């Protein structure tokens, strides 16, 4: 039976594990609210994690790493945005391409620069972010703050209204004389920055450096959390925390038995977010619908 200490430590590590997922989830929220479906969150997280770890390792500064992570992810987001917004490319294909480019480029560059099979050297001291309060570091609090900021901008400001219009009814936005493309570019840029924050958290805080493939599906868990949250920032925080706790429990409870259920395979807990998302999407427990124009390239008339 898990005791109180174990529950507390699961809680703390669950909050820690949810930070990068929360960043990616909010990133997806910005992009999809503005009409750009993004299955490239995973790739941007990975690229940011690599750029962050590489820069931190070369300069010895975690902040240099953070800026590199933000920059790399932003660059990929803008490339993806250019393909999807300017060129009217299929948004799913563009996201897929970003995932492949990031997976290949990070491992390749890692091997070429550091010669350790794609990983960066271990980071220590000032090259990492360390806990400042309650076992959580500054990046986790920044991620938390982004929930409030996202909610405020999207629902209380004129820019947020335009952004949501670009995702729900771009024709109306264009009729009001506002460029759909520019609005969507703005959202995609914020998406890139948020993924950058998440990737920095992965490599500079949760781990001490970069490992090939270290995003390990977190970008897709974020997508699942986004669907669960019905594209709402507050609910995104809740679903990411829930998935983070699930993740922490899966790590802690390997081989442990649940009362009445017997030993629960760790893979079952890992697959749970995906299974729950499918059940939700199928409408068996409530409904979750994406912004109306998400996935549809906008063409001027």
């Amino acid at each position: 039976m898990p005791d109180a200490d174990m529950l507390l430590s699961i809680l703390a590590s669950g909050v820690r594990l949810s930070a990068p997922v929360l960043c990616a989830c909010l990133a997806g929220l910005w992009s999809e609210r503005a009409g750009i479906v993004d299955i490239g969150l995973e790739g941007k997280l990975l690229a940011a994690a690599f750029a962050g770890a590489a820069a931190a390792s070369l300069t010895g500064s975690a902040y240099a790493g953070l800026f590199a992570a933000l920059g790399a992810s932003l660059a990929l987001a803008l490339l993806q945005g250019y393909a999807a917004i300017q060129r009217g490319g299929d948004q799913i294909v563009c996201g897929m391409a970003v995932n492949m480019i990031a997976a290949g480029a990070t491992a390749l560059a890692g091997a070429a620069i550091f010669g350790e099979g794609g990983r960066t050297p271990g980071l220590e001291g000032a090259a990492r972010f360390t806990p400042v309060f309650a076992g959580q570091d500054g990046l986790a609090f920044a991620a938390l703050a982004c929930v409030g900021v996202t909610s405020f901008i999207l629902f209380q400001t004129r820019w947020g209204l335009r952004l949501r219009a670009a995702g729900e009814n771009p024709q109306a936005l264009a009729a009001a004389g506002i460029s759909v493309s520019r609005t969507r570019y703005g959202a995609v840029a914020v998406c890139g920055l948020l993924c950058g924050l998440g990737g920095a958290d992965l490599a500079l805080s949760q781990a001490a450096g970069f490992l090939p493939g270290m995003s390990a599906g977190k970008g897709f868990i974020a997508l699942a959390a986004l669907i669960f949250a019905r594209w709402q920032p507050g609910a995104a925080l809740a679903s990411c925390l829930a998935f983070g706790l699930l993740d922490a429990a899966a790590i802690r409870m390997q081989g442990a038995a649940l009362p009445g259920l017997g030993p629960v395979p760790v893979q079952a807990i890992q697959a749970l977010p995906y299974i729950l998302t499918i059940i939700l999407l199928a409408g068996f427990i409530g409904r979750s619908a994406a912004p109306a124009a998400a996935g549809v390239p906008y063409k001027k008339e």
Partner: protein
Amino acid sequence: MSGPPAVWQAAGPVLAPLAVALAAISIIVAAAGENPAAALRTLAAGSLGSREGLAMTLFYTTDFIFAGLAVSVAFRAGLFNIGVEGQAMAAGIGIALAALYAGALPGALALPALALAGAAGGALWALVPAWLQARRGSHIVITTIMFNFIAGALLGFLLNGPLGAPGSMQPESPAFPAAAAMPRLDDALRAMGMTPTDTPLNLCLPLALAAAFAAHVLFERTRLGYEMAVLGASPPAAAYAGISPARIMMLAMILSGILGSGLALNELTGAQNRLILEFTGGYGFVGIAIALTGRNRPAGIVLAALLFGALYQGGAELAFERPKITRDMIVLVQGLIVLMAGCFGARARSGEA
């Protein structure tokens, strides 16, 4: 149209990705401080320049034909199946179950039984997302992504538990019985008294080519193929013509799952002879690149699969010779090709290129 004209039609679109690949590789290699010309020579010699290299290229090509056709048959009906990877894993589970628990089958029946079990696994894993899209309106892109992860978790559970080899620390199944081994090119070479190639190239290659021909007939000559194309081009037109979208979606995805199972058959009965984690190697996603560059035409897909087969095999040789340039370069190149073909190119998803 069949035969040479289709091949020539298909060759055009494959040349552009080839150019992208060669240019990207040259730049990457130069950036790594190596000689691009020498690297391209290694790539070409490693993939096409020897019997062994060519046989390995064709082994990868087999995987990629199946994966490309699987993506393409769903594309035709307007569905983006990102789940070929998971469907191949489910197929692999079916193949392993048949191989390990139906061991009493006489030799001649064993391989067809394995192929059927694999096809059933792949079809089932594709059918559920198809049903969810057709009947419950869940978006198939999201559900197939989720099904990939669920398949991975299921595979991990089975290999660490019920299907795991006793006494092995690796997540792998016991070795399959001898009757579950697909006849290899090397078996034929040995029988003829020639030197074997030491490669897993096997009977799945002709099977993949036959599947490509069958897909060509399906797309161009059958009512179902036409109905799929109508649905893919315009769902309202399909509904107006009395075509049931739900029926076509589910049929297309079942076919997609069956085609994807060929990847598992090639890897498991041709090379691994046991079920292992990650035997799909991301090849289900390569299928997306293949279907896009092959413009959804089976002839184009075969050529694109050959191109990617050569890139994967040549890339492995290059990585062996120049350790700085790892095989990850090919994944990067593949991403660039997908970006070019799918986002910067012409209409990517419509059935008619």
